[in-house]
């Protein structure tokens, strides 16, 4: 009998002791965690990219619950996540226009001359430190720091030496914008069709000399659409893309160096084609 009773007693006592300890712990040392934080953190994409301005998805969730961050603060998640987050907090989703990254340079391998043979660290930032290997001091260096920075595989280096951005994959996280030492990537609303593909502040002749596609500040585009486009520091600048009317676009596209023009957006067919190609790529 003892053989059975003693172990039962021992175990019972152990259990009792242990549970009392836990009760004590539960009573004394409870850490409240807001269930909403957990719920929101679950919804977020968990890319932890920091585009929201917080140190990670979880930090963002905490900030949203506290009211420090807007519900649509996660550009990666887009509208869908914003809506879900808002519904947890009981708010209406704030409207969010999808943005994408755009490259403001057309200094392709053939258009923009090299200064000379570059020897050294093959990143844009490093090359930029020694002035870059391109004669143009403003254009794309083509080592693809932006591509490295993109967590979403939305960029690739084109054959022309300029990075290409896949509109569909881009989440507007802005990492490429940060990465580029020449500040030639910017986020624009996806429906903005007209882009200035140059950032050179050099005066026309100098700019022209180093890159065939540079903006030479001739003012043709400004004349075509004075409300939407201005010249500033030898460079055309779009002040408000909504003021560019469709019928003005042909005139804008008369730009002699094509430094301003319509963004080439892949049509759905083309998109399908590239997808297919990718599928068969080794």
């Amino acid at each position, binding site marked *: 009998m003892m053989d059975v009773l003693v172990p039962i007693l021992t175990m019972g006592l152990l259990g009792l002791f242990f549970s009392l300890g836990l009760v004590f712990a539960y009573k004394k040392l409870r850490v409240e965690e807001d269930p909403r934080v957990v719920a929101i953190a679950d919804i977020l994409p968990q890319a932890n990219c920091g585009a929201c301005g917080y140190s990670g998805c979880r930090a963002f969730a905490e900030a949203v619950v506290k009211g420090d961050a807007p519900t649509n603060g996660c550009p990666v998640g887009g509208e869908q996540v914003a809506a879900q987050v808002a519904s947890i907090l009981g708010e209406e989703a704030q409207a969010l226009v999808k943005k994408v990254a755009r490259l403001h340079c057309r200094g392709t391998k053939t258009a923009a001359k090299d200064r000379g043979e570059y*020897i050294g*660290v093959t990143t844009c930032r*490093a090359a930029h430190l020694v*002035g870059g290997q391109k004669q143009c001091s403003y254009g794309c260096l083509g080592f693809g720091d932006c591509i490295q920075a993109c967590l979403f595989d939305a960029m690739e280096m084109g054959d022309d030496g300029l990075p290409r951005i896949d509109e569909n994959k881009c989440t507007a996280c802005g990492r490429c914008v940060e990465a580029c030492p020449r500040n030639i990537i910017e986020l624009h609303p996806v429906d903005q069709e007209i882009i200035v593909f140059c950032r050179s502040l050099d005066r026309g002749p*100098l700019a022209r000399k180093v890159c065939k596609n540079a903006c030479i500040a001739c003012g043709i585009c400004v004349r075509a659409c004075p409300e939407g486009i201005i010249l500033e520091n030898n460079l055309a600048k779009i002040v408000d893309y909504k003021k560019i009317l469709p019928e003005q676009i042909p005139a804008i596209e008369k730009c002699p160096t094509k430094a301003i023009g319509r963004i080439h957006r892949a049509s759905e067919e083309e998109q399908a084609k590239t997808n297919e190609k990718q599928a068969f790529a080794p």
Partner: protein
Amino acid sequence: MKKKTFPRGIHPPGGKEWTADKAIEVLPPPEKVYIPLHQHFGQPAQPLVKKGDTILRGQKIGKAPALFSADVHASVSGKVLAVDGHPHPLGKPVLAVTIANDGQDSSSDEEEIPDPFSLSPEEIIRRVKEAGIVGLGGAAFPTAVKLAPPADKPIDTIIINGCECEPFLTSDYRLMKEYPEEIISGAELIRLATNAKQIIISVEDNKEDAAELLASKIQEKHIFVEVLTTKYPQGAEKNLILALLKREVPRGGLPFDVGVVVQNVGTTKAIWEAVRFGRPLYQRVITVSGSGIPEPKNLLVRIGTPLQTVIDFCGGLKEGVNCLIMGGPMMGITQWNLEAPIIKGTSGLLAWSLPPASQVFDCIRCGRCVEHCPMGLTPTQLAKYIQFGFWDEAEAWGVLDCVECGCCQYSCPAAIPLVQWIRLGKATISALKRKTV
């Protein structure tokens, strides 16, 4: 007695024999000069002239907008052709004044002062500032700022830096040989301006004759000539102060934190000329050398002279030259555009043909970079931290203390561009800091 020096450092080949005995020649002022308004540490100067103006040599054409900046003066007399972007040796085009030389060389120098040693410190500094003098030793730091340290940092020692530790360069050496009195007088002016007690003129032992010449001209008891071991970077001010005075400039600090002002011999001579003759800084001595130059020379050139003119004067570039460096081989900047002008900070122009780039290996952790870094850094670790984006670690390991002397990369058997990585790190870290502040 054992000659003083600092720990670590390297012994690169000298290359000084090419030009050491070439007396300073005057390069005739070119037909056009391009004077950038930004040639110094700090903010660019603001233009005071416009296209079409007629100006005199020495006339102020750019005005310093802030304390950390310097005035810019015309180096020839003539007509302003443009105030416009022009290629700059540092890479990006900057605003420059293009002047067509009228050949008159009519000057607008300020009045001469027969006895400059009687001037008040304030007046000396004012004249230095008016002359647009910046450090000619490389950093192009506005000299007037350096001469007026904060009141709580008394200066006791002036070091005149005649080390010229960069290989190939001999312009400082020629200055010491040809203008010893001017340098000594300039040093005395600096001492008066800063109220210091003693002056040390430091010269490396590969220029012993210059040191002897200087010593023979000194009458005052508070001026010494100190001959140091030839070692790169003997001329870097923190190492120089350590070698001469056994004082360590604290991390992130400046020489005045340990009561010292360091000035290059060229700067010292320029100070003398500015204070004594009211002559602004519109010319300087440079060394043109290297195996790609048919006639290596030491030249007195006007600021704004295009590189092409300088090279042509020395016989043009030889066949096969593929590397053109402004400055010395250790810290100089590669040039690609011969339209770029000589600026105040240009100490030399070197040309040679480099063999095809040597293969870069992964770091083999030989530790030679650590062994030679004069600042006590661990360059290989810094470079790796930077390569992998560990900015905090890189900063904790002292990346911001690097003076970019290049000793590490010189000694690296794996040919790793360490200095470029470190520069990248310094740039990124300062950018991040600016963002978080």
